[in-house]
């Protein structure tokens, strides 16, 4: 399937909405926009109503409510008053939809991006975002948020978050 963020709309109003969504960031990982994360699945406009279809990363992710609110606010600021946000579960969100630009931004920010495809459990070789050594180890399968695991670099000793393949 083609990730939604590669969508190029020929409709100028719809394209404008996509451009605005590119400015809405994830509240937990503010370096990523919601398009980088691949959680926006569709945008459509009919009779002045903007419909934005999103899909949650994890079912219990508390950021989803805030993301919906931030989408509304961003669109409202640009004059889109009538916004409907639809949450769909299928197809299931995967880190495979995360953009390459998003992965690069994550690493730059200090979070190791997902290595491999959905479901992959990399035993080792996760790159340390600080010193770029791949001599790292898993400290805990669960990190500061549901989407991350906790690793530590064996060379520079720095602990760091790893965005899990999902």
């Amino acid at each position, binding site marked *: 399937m083609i990730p939604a963020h590669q969508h190029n709309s020929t409709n100028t109003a719809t394209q404008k909405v996509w451009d605005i969504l590119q400015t809405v960031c994830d509240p937990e990982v503010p370096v990523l926009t919601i398009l980088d994360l691949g959680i926006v699945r569709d945008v459509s406009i009919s009779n002045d109503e903007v419909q934005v279809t999103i899909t949650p990363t*994890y*079912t*219990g992710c508390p950021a989803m409510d805030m993301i919906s609110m931030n989408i509304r606010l961003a669109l409202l600021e640009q004059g889109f008053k009538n916004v409907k946000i639809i949450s*769909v579960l299928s197809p299931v969100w995967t880190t495979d939809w995360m953009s390459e630009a998003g992965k690069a931004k994550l690493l730059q920010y200090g979070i190791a991006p997902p290595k491999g495809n959905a479901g992959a459990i990399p035993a080792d070789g996760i790159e340390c975002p600080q010193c770029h050594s791949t001599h790292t180890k898993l400290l*805990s399968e*669960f990190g500061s948020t549901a989407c991350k695991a906790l690793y530590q670099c064996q060379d520079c000793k720095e602990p760091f978050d790893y965005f899990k393949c999902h």
Partner: protein
Amino acid sequence: MNSNQTDQINKLLPIEQDAANLSTYQLIKYSLHLADTNLILSQRNSEWCGHGPILEQDIAITNITLDLLGQSRNFYQYAATLIGSEATEDSLAYFRTEREFKNCLLVELANGDWGQTILRQFFFSAYQFLLYEKLQHSKDDQLAAIAAKALKEVTYHLRWSSEWVLRLGDGTAESHTRMQAAFEVLWPYTGELFMPEDYEQYCASDGTGVDIAEIKAAWDTKVREVLAEANLAAVMKDNAPAAYMYTGGKQGTHTEAMGYILTELQYVQRTYPGNEW
């Protein structure tokens, strides 16, 4: 939410007599069963928040808890849609009585020590993994979508809890003794997972639910394999009670623990109906 709305949820029940509504009625009960089980386990596990043995594992169990809560919300939202009128995920979680909750007994038991919490999570995740693996092929699109989504999360829960059962079961003499004791407490509550209620049978037969009898063998194999590797005996001490399994939760007949859980869970909404953060 007022008492009027609570009545509307209760009034739902008589539609069973209407053949046309029977499948919806069973689907609602089935969705509530799935929702309740997730909600009550998440409520129990959340007691560990800030009390875990070490920070990383405190975070792990609360992350699992968050996933379970998210899953319960999905099932409640779906049940609320099927019920219609003014039912919402909140009204279903906060304004139903103990007898209306359809969670299995295993999830409502007190946490015990860390070992007992881990062993319960392992028993439960092994069950939930097999359940969702089948439910993702449900004829009901929404149940299938929820299960497919949740399966990815439960895969992680199962791996984490299995590793901890190994670590504690095959750890020190103290941790081993505690895990064996936890087994004695929990085992008689595992049978209920595989004894279908009327709504489970109905939904399994019309393809919307899972035939839980079908996943029992796989669960048994998985559980015994991990327990053996963890050096834990998968039999009750004197064998006699091994055949006895507590049941009733899925019908609404709960243990003493349930009233206390709901008291804490529902207190704010019962006292200040409709109150928002």
